[in-house]
């Protein structure tokens, strides 16, 4: 048998059962697979022994001492043979062992109070969101009054980070979606002999719907989460408080530049995504149906009215401001701990994507007569 295994040898003596504790009584040794069950059984077997000898224990730590002390029913055995060090450790465990505090149980009143807290939290969200929108408008008015003093450096930085750096990924996603859609549609349309209509279907769906929504979803995931995390970490590291103390309005310096950058970048990224998707569709149509690109381009301008593009850019701008505001809203609500940071970022992305799709449906209903 391994000498290090924690174990107990019992033997009857004239004074009663004598228990000799052997092996290594440390947290790591006791936690080895299957060990604790064996040790617990051995402790059970030696229960009530009046004589305990721990002198031959190879190594004992506080967890091992605690295991012994608990097995003794939290009182000293009649005879204990231990080295001074071991005795000191056991005495320390004995001195500090307490009845653990009982976790509080929730009563009906607590549940009622929790419900109240939930209602207040929802109300807080609504009020904060409203305040953020109002503050953004006031900040925009202030910017118009004295444009020279606006946070233009921040604005251009965000424009680069939100817009320019998103171009490759949005182009890739748009292109592939265009290819897939055109390929699938071409097979259906060929059965009906309506090959030429692929330009109409692809054009309207991409320009009016898919381009802006794809771009918005990508930017919500990419930049929305980044904004929330950035502002959230500023809260954790007390940068927001420092800003307040310095008398710098966080709405003007943090929220507005991001919202404006999003408002400008989003329509441009949406058009870019649409162009990439149309390019993909054009190539797929050429390859699968033999539709020449020149025809595709000329038919596109006839099939899709320019109003569709304006509508797409208009709603992209709304999406952009919305994503930025939702991201800032959740960022500013983050509490200074890591869990809250994770929850806030997730909530920000989920809320923005949901809102994008809801508002897109709203646009579809309101502008159903435009451009069709």
């Amino acid at each position, binding site marked *: 048998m391994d000498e290090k295994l924690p174990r107990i040898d019992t033997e009857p003596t004239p004074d009663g059962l004598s228990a000799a504790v052997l092996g290594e009584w*440390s*947290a*790591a040794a*006791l*936690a*080895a*697979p299957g*060990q*604790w069950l064996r040790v*617990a059984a051995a402790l059970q077997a030696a229960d009530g022994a009046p004589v305990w000898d721990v002198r031959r224990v190879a190594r004992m*730590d*506080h*967890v091992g001492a*605690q*295991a012994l002390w*608990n097995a003794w029913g939290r009182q000293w055995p009649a005879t204990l043979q231990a080295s001074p*060090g071991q005795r*000191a450790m056991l005495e*320390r*465990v004995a*001195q*500090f*062992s*307490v009845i*653990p*505090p009982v*976790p509080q149980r929730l009563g009906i009143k607590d549940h009622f109070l929790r419900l109240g807290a939930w209602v207040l939290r929802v109300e807080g969200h609504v009020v904060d969101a409203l305040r953020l929108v109002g503050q953004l408008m006031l900040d925009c008015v202030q910017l118009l009054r004295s444009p020279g003093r606006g946070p233009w450096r921040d604005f251009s930085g965000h424009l680069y980070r939100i817009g320019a750096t998103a171009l490759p990924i949005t182009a890739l996603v748009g292109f592939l979606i265009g290819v897939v859609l055109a390929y699938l549609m071409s097979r259906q349309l060929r059965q009906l002999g309506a090959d030429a209509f692929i330009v109409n279907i692809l054009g309207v769906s991409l320009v009016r719907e898919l381009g802006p929504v794809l771009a918005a979803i990508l930017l919500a995931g990419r930049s929305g989460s980044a904004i929330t995390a950035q502002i959230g970490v500023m809260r954790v590291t007390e940068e927001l408080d420092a800003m307040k103390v310095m008398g710098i309005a966080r709405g003007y310096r943090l929220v507005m530049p991001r919202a404006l950058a999003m408002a400008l970048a989003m329509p441009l990224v949406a058009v870019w995504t649409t162009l990439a998707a149309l390019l993909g569709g054009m190539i797929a149509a050429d390859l699968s149906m033999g539709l020449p690109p020149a025809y595709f381009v000329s038919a596109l301008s006839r099939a899709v009215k320019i109003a569709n593009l304006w509508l797409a850019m208009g709603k992209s701008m709304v999406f952009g401001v919305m994503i930025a505001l939702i991201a800032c809203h959740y960022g500013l609500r983050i*509490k*200074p*701990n*890591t*869990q*809250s940071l994770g929850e806030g970022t997730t909530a920000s992305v989920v809320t923005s994507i949901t809102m994008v799709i809801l508002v897109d449906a709203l646009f579809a209903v309101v502008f159903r007569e435009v451009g069709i």
Partner: protein
Amino acid sequence: MSTPAGLVQAQAPAAQPPIVEIRQLWSAFRSGGVQTIIHQDLDLNIAQGELLSIVGGSGGGKTVLLRQILGLETPLRGSVTVLGRPAHALARPGSAGRVGMLFQHGALYSAFTVLENIAFPLRELRGLPADLVRDAVLVKMQMVGLEPQHANKMPADLSGGMIKRVALARALIMDPTLLLLDEPTAGLDPDRSDEFCKLLRSLHRELDLTVVMVTHDLDTIFETSTRIAVVAEKHVIVEGPPQQVLAFDHPFVREFFLGGRGNRAMELLRNPTHAV
């Protein structure tokens, strides 16, 4: 024992290998492609049972030295051996528990309660019953002076001093051989700081710990340390018992210990209120 005391003492260091052995250590950090050398040919031995304070100017590489001992940084050159193994092997799963670290800001997991924070290393072993883990945590909490009713609180609800205590209890939960402390008294008021020194001394004595501490606080240094190592000019310029370090003639040592600030601590050293 019949052997003369002096002989035993002379043999002791040879018989027991040092807990930490740093040889010709070079450390550097890289930022924006520029490499800054922090340590250059740094040598340091830490023996069993010592309470060593590492002092030095801000940005002098004290915390990096601690991180080297913990195996969180990679040496540019030289070696760091902790408990007979290369320091970087400490960070591997399965070899945890022999070294405890108190980080400067506690590094408590904000999503866990106090009890869960302290129990974390024990629970990671998987195999100890929950009530034994809880009892062991409560004992460690009381050892560092935390009342059991704080067990279910979240770190966000604790004061700075309490966070330090919880972090200390967590560092001690596996009964480490070596305890590292980064600025343990920074952010504590003088009373709390004194209390912490007392606690540290008693833990050092009772648990037979080897303690390595980085601090700027002269009171803490002189009240607790058995040895001081001064890190300046990228290496250890002097190390030894407090008196020996104070007697060393070097501008940094004079400035650090014997300037206006140092007088009070010197007074404490001349009239010790207790045996260190």
